[in-house]
C-alpha cells in the first residue's frame, strides 16, 4: 500500500491531471476572453493596381497577375495571454472563365508581439499569382484574414478587412512586368 512505487504512481498521476486541468483552463480562458474582446474595426485593404502578363520561359502557359496593395489594420485586440502569434494573410478570391473558384494567398506575415500588431503595409504580392485559364473577365475580392495561434488550445480564424467590392483584372498586356 505505502510502497515507494505506489507513492510515485499517486504523485505523478496527481501532477499530470493538475497540469492537464490547468492547460484545459487556459485553453478555455481564451475562448471566454474572445467573447469579451472589442470587435476588430477599421481594417482596410486597398488595391492600387493590377497588371496581367504572360509568364516567361517554362511559366509561359500561365498568366501572372501583379498586385500592388495597401493594408491598414489594428489587430492588437487579438492578443491575449494565450496568443502565441498571429498569421496574417491577404487572400485573393475570384472565379475564372471555366467556373473554377479560386482563392490564392498573395501576401502573408507572422506577428508575434502585441507591439507589432498595428499593420501598415504598402507593397506588392509575395507569392506567385497565376492561372492557366487566365484572368480574362474575372474580378477578385481581396481579404485580409488572420489566424490566431494559441500557446495551447484551438486555432481561431477571422477576417480583418476587405476591398470594397471586387477589383477587375485588366486585359493581358505585354511580356514585361
Amino acid at each position: 500500500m505505502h510502497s515507494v512505487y505506489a507513492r510515485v504512481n499517486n504523485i505523478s498521476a496527481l501532477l499530470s491531471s493538475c497540469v492537464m486541468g490547468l492547460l484545459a483552463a487556459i485553453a478555455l480562458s481564451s475562448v471566454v476572453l474572445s467573447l469579451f474582446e472589442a470587435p476588430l474595426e477599421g481594417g482596410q485593404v486597398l488595391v492600387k493596381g493590377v497588371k496581367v502578363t504572360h509568364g516567361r520561359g517554362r511559366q509561359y502557359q500561365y498568366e501572372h497577375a501583379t498586385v500592388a496593395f495597401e493594408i491598414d489594420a489594428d489587430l492588437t485586440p487579438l492578443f491575449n495571454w494565450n496568443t502565441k502569434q498571429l498569421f496574417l494573410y491577404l487572400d485573393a478570391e475570384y472565379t475564372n472563365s471555366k467556373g473554377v473558384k479560386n482563392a490564392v494567398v498573395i501576401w502573408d506575415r507572422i506577428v508575434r508581439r502585441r507591439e507589432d500588431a498595428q499593420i501598415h503595409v504598402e507593397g506588392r504580392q509575395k507569392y506567385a499569382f497565376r492561372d492557366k485559364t487566365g484572368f480574362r473577365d474575372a474580378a477578385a475580392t481581396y481579404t485580409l484574414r488572420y489566424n490566431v495561434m494559441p500557446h495551447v488550445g484551438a486555432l481561431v480564424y477571422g477576417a480583418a478587412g476587405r476591398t470594397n467590392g471586387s477589383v477587375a483584372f485588366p486585359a493581358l498586356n505585354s511580356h514585361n512586368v
Partner: protein
Amino acid sequence: MFTEELKAFRRLGFRHVLLQALNFASVIASGLMIWKGLGLVTNSESPIVVVLSGSMEPAFYRGDLLFLTNPIHERYHTGDITVYKIPGADIPIVHRVLETHDAKSRGPTHNQRLLTKGDNNDVNDIELYRGLDYLERKHIVGKVRGFLPYIGYVTIAMNDFPQLKYALLGGLGLLALIQRE
C-alpha cells in the same frame, strides 16, 4: 535482485498471472478502441499527430501535438493548416494552405485542389508533391483544430533512441505483471 518478486510470483500462482495478462490486454485494447473511435468521429485516419519537422516554426515546433478533423462536407480554406500524405512518401507533412481551386463538384466530396506551403519555408510545396501539380482531397489527412505543445516529444525521443522504447515497454509490461493491488 528479483528474488522477492519471484517469490511473490510463486505465492500468487498461475491464475493471478493470467488475470494480470488479461488486464494488460484490456488496457491495450481500450487504447486502440479510443484511437479508432476518434478516427471515426473526426473522419481522419490519424486524428492526433506529432510535429516532426521545423517547417512550420514559429507556429509549431518539433514534438508539438496537433488535433485534426477532416469533415467530409467541409471545404478547405486558404490559411488552414493541413496534414497531408503523398502516396509513396511515408511521413505525413503539416503545412498551410496557400491556394484553393474548387471546380464544380459531382460527388458528395468537394472537387478541390490545394497548394500548400510551410510557414518557415520560402517556397511552396510543389517539389514535395512527387510530380503532382496540386494536392487533392484524397491526400489530405486532416485540418489542424487544436494544439498542445511539447507533449509529443516523447515519441520523437523514442524514435531517436529505440532503446528507450524497449526499456519503457518492457518496464510497463513487467509492472503490469507483478503489481499486486
